[in-house]
């Protein structure tokens, strides 16, 4: 039995001469919530559509290891048959997935979704709720959520986040794309950044730490780099490290031993990842312009 749910190897996607995705490698484990971050047009939706099987890759492999042959896909925007009722729409998808519809009805009641209402009479928030109920019908092992909170008011967005958390709580794997960093911070266990079709960052968030220190001499950085996966900023005052809690305590001890003051230790979150990436981009752009 594999411990990953989704594995992407050297994935390429081109449309004619334009290359949309280039050599993407990604592994999503059981129970992971993978946050996919990137600017508009970076290739996030294309990647999600490839994973859900809506498109065929131009190169590379996508392997999905789930018991069920369907995924819980929630597109960025979706509008079901206007004149159909919520119950009929959910029943339709349950029939396609050969799943028990009663669980979905219970979920509808929990989310205060009026099943007798016609789809055209639902508010955007209720439409999104119905979409997530449809995605959850049949209890898939892998969820693909494309901007689940986009266009929702704060209350509806909060409810949506709670639903996603409950899916994660049941040990399901989720790959989610969003522009709302605070949402991503709340739910993601991993973060991946896509830029111009390339995966430029991919890390488990709870394994990443940032340590703000007084300036660390190059010799010490060199020494620590031999034992830790370590990165520093230009002024050598921020150390980014991939390790667990024991590793971080050990490192702090070593820094103190070398008379380096440790001001702050924080776990890496999506916001810090994005900020660092933006800084990196700005630096690369400046170098390129020079």
């Amino acid at each position, binding site marked *: 039995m594999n411990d990953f749910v989704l594995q992407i190897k050297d994935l390429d996607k081109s449309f004619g001469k334009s290359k949309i995705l280039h050599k993407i490698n990604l592994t999503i484990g059981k129970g992971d919530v993978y946050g996919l971050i990137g600017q508009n047009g970076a290739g996030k939706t294309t990647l999600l559509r490839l994973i859900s099987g809506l498109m065929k890759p131009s190169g590379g492999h996508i392997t999905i290891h789930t018991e*069920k042959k*369907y995924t819980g896909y929630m*597109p960025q925007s979706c509008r*079901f*048959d206007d004149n159909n009722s919520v119950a009929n729409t959910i029943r339709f*998808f349950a*029939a*396609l*997935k050969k799943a028990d519809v009663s669980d979905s009805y219970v979920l509808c009641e929990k989310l205060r979704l009026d099943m007798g209402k016609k789809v055209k009479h639902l508010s955007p928030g209720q439409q999104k709720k119905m979409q997530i109920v449809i995605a959850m019908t049949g209890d898939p092992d892998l969820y693909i959520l494309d901007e689940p909170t986009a266009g929702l008011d704060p209350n509806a967005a909060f409810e949506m986040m709670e639903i996603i958390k409950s899916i994660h709580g049941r040990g399901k794997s989720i790959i989610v794309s969003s522009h709302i960093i605070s949402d991503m911070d709340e739910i993601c266990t991993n973060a991946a950044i896509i830029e111009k079709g390339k995966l430029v960052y991919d890390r488990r968030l709870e394994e990443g730490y940032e340590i703000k220190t007084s300036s660390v001499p190059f010799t010490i950085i060199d020494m620590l780099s031999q034992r830790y996966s370590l990165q520093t900023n230009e002024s050598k005052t921020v150390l980014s490290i991939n390790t667990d809690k024991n590793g971080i305590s050990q490192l702090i001890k070593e820094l103190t031993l070398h008379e380096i003051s440790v001001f702050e230790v924080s776990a890496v979150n999506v916001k810090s990842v994005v900020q660092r990436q933006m800084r990196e981009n700005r630096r690369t752009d400046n170098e390129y312009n020079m």
Partner: protein
Amino acid sequence: MNITCKTLIRRDMRKVFHIRTFLIWCALSLTAIFFFFTTGGKTDLMQNNEVNFMALFLPQIIFGAWAVLSIYFDITSSDREHNVLDCILCAGISKSVIFWCKIIAILLASLVLSFAYLLPVTAVIVILSKDIAHCVILLQYLLPLWSYIMVYAALGIAISVIARSTKTALIVSLASGLVLMPRFFILIIDGIGAIFQWTQAAKEAVSMIAPGVMMEALSHYSGTSEYLKMTVIFSLSIILLLTIAFMVFCKQDELNYGE
């Protein structure tokens, strides 16, 4: 047929038999009765006890393309536009299954529509002639009308698949209906024939591409060879259009990239 196919077909049938379809086909059936009285159909029936082909099918020949395309133009485009197709595909259903279910749905729907069109006018004929034997008209013309409707249905599904949005599909359907209107189509072929110096026979043969022109031609002949020709042309048209639609449907995401 498994439960998945039945579910998909039932949904497509529900989409096809919209209130819009009911109104359009009621109007078409009433027009058929009106034309039967005003184009010499009644006179032929009362004097010679014959049913005039043109008197039966004139509304179909003139408005058939629009009436049929108006039903099928959004059968795929709306699902794609609203991302419902993506949700269906992610439910573990393959594109080929979805497409085959659509074909079965349009086959059944077109048969029902053929019946719905012929039933009122046949009833009028039976009442006027007081001859129940005229009910056979329903059976005699059901198959030609079904295949005639199926040509436009196949065109409708092809437009629905190829068009990038429902609005585009509607515009293309309206334009196609206009171009395929027999009188207009013959004028177009005459113009093209004049440029390329085609013979009259060549122009007539090419005109048969339009289903309405083919149906019109049938009114002048009663021989089985003409009906055989019609069967071949209609079958080829249906197969060609559905094949194009299927190929585009399977590669739609790649073809429509950049919307």
